[in-house]
């Protein structure tokens, strides 16, 4: 059986593909790597030759770039080559924002060029005791008689006993 000849996509089709990929990504495409990731999600397994794939990919990218500002043609997420953005985020993050309100105030997105991400570290790692219950706490500095003192507080804000003094 003869193989079907590949028909190069029309400009309307390119536009349609571009729009659908952009809406699927929810506006998260910021560079070539993020674009590759979302493009390959839909067209990675298409039975096309390498040249055909490249040309179509390039056309769709150019169309998207012309429509939306802030899409860089560079590869910003180099480490994982666009395959695993979280891995890149972990390695490139300069500031780790843990508070959701602060995250919103800074205008950071899940994929952000500044390297901001949503990685949260649970600060409650030290075990203390509150009313006879073993709880996870975090160390805080409070002022007693105008002097800074280190204490433990649990998730509810209750002061916990010092683990060093526990038996």
């Amino acid at each position, binding site marked *: 059986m003869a193989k079907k000849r590949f028909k190069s996509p029309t400009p309307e089709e390119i536009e349609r593909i571009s729009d659908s990929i952009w809406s699927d990504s929810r506006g998260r495409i910021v560079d070539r790597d993020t674009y590759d990731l979302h493009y390959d999600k839909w067209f990675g397994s298409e039975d096309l030759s390498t040249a055909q794939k490249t040309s179509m990919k390039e056309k769709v990218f150019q169309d998207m770039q012309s429509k939306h500002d802030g899409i860089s043609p560079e590869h910003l997420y180099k480490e994982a080559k666009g395959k695993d953005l979280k891995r890149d985020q972990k390695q490139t993050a300069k500031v780790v924002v843990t508070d959701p309100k602060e995250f919103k105030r800074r205008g950071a997105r899940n994929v952000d060029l500044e390297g901001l991400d949503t990685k949260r570290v649970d600060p409650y790692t030290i075990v203390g*005791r509150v009313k006879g219950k*073993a709880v996870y706490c975090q160390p805080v500095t409070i002022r007693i008689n105008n002097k800074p003192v280190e204490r433990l507080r649990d998730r509810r804000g209750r002061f916990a006993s010092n683990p060093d003094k*526990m038996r």
Partner: protein
Amino acid sequence: MINQTIKKYYRRTDVRFEIVKQLYRREFAVLKPSYMDQSKKNMRMLRCHNLNHFDYIMQYLKFFSTDNFYNFYKSLATYYNGIPIQKLNYTERGNGDWKQTHFKEMGSYDLMIDIDAGDHNDIQHAQYSAQIITEFYNKLNVPYYLIFSGKGFHIITPGNYFNKSKNIIESDNIYFLYSAIARYLYNNFSELVDTGIYDPRRLCKLAYSLAIYDDSVYVAYPLNYYVELDDFRLKEYNLNGFDKPVTKRGMMLFNEKGNVKQLEGVVVNGKEKV
């Protein structure tokens, strides 16, 4: 050096005997320690009802001839006929049907309260948590085994004290009850209690087996007396210098003539009738 000590420990007849004794009609599993390369296959669904089975599995794993060590686990569930007889080679196995319908063969399913310290430095908090939970159990006359697991404690109540469905599809099943009990203990006694471990195929560490970590090896030793918990010292359970008795020791079931009615009442109805 430590590798030789591990091998020497598992060559002891009394240790092997105590391990095999717990595995009757249960699933035996060998899993790689978390710090090791996970590319090696872990093995589940092993049948180990006697010392010959155990030796055969050890031989298959090349446990004594290489340095591939495993942690040993048993299932919380017991099965009427045990795990199906089968070959150890994965490609020749076919357990798909059995996995679908295994709850029909389930005789009992133990309640395990897992108190996990997270770090060996926090073991005193795990000890304290185990103390207050066992006190609570004693107050309600709940039967239980108490086992040191390597980084925490397991408080295991045999499943034959509970009378609930083991089918996870049914609404009023045993896993909901266990989860509720764990959440109750988490809220009232200790945040070290793990609340997310209640599903039909859960495993727990075998008593008298070794808990292998990257820098140390501990013996998962059942604590058969209250004194052992009160005077618990982590050093004594380290494999280096371990000299506690194993022969004919078994596991002590505290409050053997008790029941779980009060515990269920406390958790389900929120009423403590003591």
